[in-house]
């Protein structure tokens, strides 16, 4: 449930916006996400969902305002400190973030790169480390059989599961998922969202979705974006049809 009033410090807080050239992708957003929330970001294509998630992840600096992650202003930190904060976030995206040319094992192990030294990381490409943990993570997403498979052979749904297994070994506190199910059929989409919404994966989830129905089932809070502005921010139980209709209506 979204908690109003004083509560735990926000996991992530965004104030400001982002422009690309003359295009205002996000305008005057003031958004806080608290620990334990399951936030769905809804909106038509081009409404600013991906920009919002990139800003929260710290992979894109805002053109105005600031991003506070775990209480610290992300773009005022040294890059080393920023990296330490970023390793507490896990990302999943619509386009596969897996490398096709290597085995699933390495793609899952990539979740541990932030805690590994460079030599250990590169060494593991030749002599894999932590195989047992990787196997356990894969088994939890029902992909145990794929440990030594080459990633390019997997289907879209299988790849998203492997991406989730990567998060399982990374153990982030916050998961940011950018349209993780937009290319999946309804059954697989529901499976992947169930895995993403699992408390054991991360306490907090922000996920952008195209189908409001999925938001109602898997999330506790819904944010509507339209042309770069937040048009509603409500508990999913209060989502209603007119609001959604406005959200997707043509300008």
């Amino acid at each position, binding site marked *: 449930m979204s908690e109003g009033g004083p509560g735990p410090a926000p996991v992530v807080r965004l104030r400001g916006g982002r422009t690309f050239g003359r295009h205002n992708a996000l305008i005057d957003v003031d958004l806080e996400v608290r620990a334990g929330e399951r936030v769905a970001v809804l909106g038509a294509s081009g409404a600013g969902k991906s920009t919002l998630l990139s800003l929260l992840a710290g992979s894109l600096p805002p053109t105005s305002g600031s991003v506070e992650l775990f209480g610290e202003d992300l773009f005022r930190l040294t890059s080393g400190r920023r990296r330490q904060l970023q390793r507490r976030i896990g990302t999943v995206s619509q386009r596969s973030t897996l490398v096709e040319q290597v085995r699933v094992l390495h793609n899952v192990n990539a979740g541990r790169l932030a805690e590994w030294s460079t030599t250990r*990381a590169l060494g593991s490409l030749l002599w894999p480390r932590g195989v047992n943990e990787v196997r356990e993570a894969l088994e939890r997403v029902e992909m145990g059989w794929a440990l030594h498979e080459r990633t390019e052979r997997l289907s879209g749904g299988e790849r998203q599961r492997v991406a989730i297994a990567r998060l399982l070994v*990374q153990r*982030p506190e916050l998961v940011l998922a950018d349209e993780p199910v937009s290319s999946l059929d309804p059954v697989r989409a529901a499976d992947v969202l169930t895995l993403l919404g699992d408390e054991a994966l991360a306490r907090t989830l922000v996920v952008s979705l195209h189908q409001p129905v999925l938001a109602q089932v898997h999330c506790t809070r819904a944010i509507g974006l339209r042309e770069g502005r937040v048009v509603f921010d409500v508990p999913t139980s209060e989502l209603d049809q007119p609001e959604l209709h406005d959200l997707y209506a043509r300008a």
Partner: protein
Amino acid sequence: MTVQLGRPETEAPARPLRTTGIRVVRRKLLTGAAVVGLVAWAAARSVPEGEVVNRGGLSLLDDLAGTALNPSFDPAFLRVVVDATVTTAAFALLGTLGALVLGLVGGVVLSDVAWDRRPPLPVRALRLVLRVVLVAVRAVHELVWALLFVSVLGLDPLVAVLALALPFGAQTAQVFGETFDAVPEEPLRALRDAGARRVSALGYGLLPQALPLMLSYAFYRFECALRSVVVLGVAGVGGLGFELSVSLQSRNWDEVWTLIGALLLLAALVELWSNRVRCNLAIVTCADWAVGQAHDTAERHPARLSRPVRASLWAIPVAAVASWWWVGLSPSGLYSERTRSLTSRLLSDMWPPALPDGGWSVLVGSALDTVAMAVLAMVLGVAITLAIGPWASRPRRGRDGSTGPLRWLAWAVGRGVLLVLRSVPPTVWAVVALLGLFPGIIPGAVALGLYTGGILARLVAEAWETVDLRPRDALRDAGVAPSVSAMLAVGPPSARHLVTYTLYRFEICIRDTAIVGVVGAAGLGRLLQDRLSAFDFAAVSGVLIASFVVSALVELVGRQVRRGL
């Protein structure tokens, strides 16, 4: 070869397209007139005042031809040949590996994605410097590098390795940088977002994706390195090239033929191996590397590295160690007292640059000779391409039937002839040409033309293999005569390939004139060799700057023309 200095990517302002028939015809006429004018100018410039054919040398040519069927099989000499062959391969391997190391480091610095598309200020500054250095390093031919290194290091095996590694490394850095930027960046982005260190993230997110392309390019570079090592023989770098120039100078024709036989064998083996590996990596033809075309590699993913590739990957480190030992490479020569003092003396002699004796007129005259030689060489090269290229394209089965054995025979013969043309180094072609012709533009152009023809025809033939035949088949289905439908549907793309590669090779040819110049043909290369042997190093750097300007100008014009295609 591309120079990428702030390439303007701005889109043309939207304006109504007005391509009329008159404009097309006018443009074609203008282009045609320009080409004819250029060739006519080059031909006029190449006509010497005196005689062209050296009658005195013809008997020598006769001797050379006479021994073709009687190569030397003297056991002592065969031992020399085997040693030289191994040395050549070893130098090529070490030079290529050096170039790959330089290319990998340079490629990461030049790549945008490796720096999260926001390179920090020091990296941006380093990059700017690096780009300028790379262009300058590449503009100087391997042979010239070798001559300069020889004057500092003496006859050290380092000369060969450095002379290959520097210019090739500069080219490789450019290609690797572009490769890194061309693969999907989401995986790398995700790892960086999750806090991974830069090098770890590159190792997991970028390198595996770029690796097949990089390997394929490495093998292509190895083929090029092999040809270059042989050319470097003129500068005293050991191996087949060196033995060739010794035997040519002492006019032991039978030995020349043995050496050429060994050279062809080595080149053929390496090309077969490299082709096999590059095919298995399922990437691109040499032709694509040559002009640096961006490619969609998503079409075909081999399930895993094939056996030849894996065997090669195991064999290469072993071969590298063996090569190191065989040529007796020792980096101590780099920082010895003698090297240091010679280097500082060379640099102080070279600076400030000066005009050669005779001043501007000699320098400009040599530069024009260089361009004329390259133009004539390209004419010969294109003629060879048109004559042999169509046969050297892998026969493709029509829809209706199979290809006859005669066509396959023609293919094998065509490829064989091209292999001979490009494997015999242009220095040897030039020495042979200089037996029958008096020094000047023409022997140089003949030598370069034969060599360039061997390379150009192969590139074009491989590109022709990829031309889409479906439009032709569609025309045939519509009842158009086979010859007409081939001309309409296959002609334009084939012509386009020919023009693209000709322009590209022309840029290289300008650089390569240095090679035939060194053995006495004409142009800036000859002037350079002349000044080098007179120890007139101030003029040497003057000539180097002139050749840099010429190749930069040709590259700029070539790029404009290519973009307009």
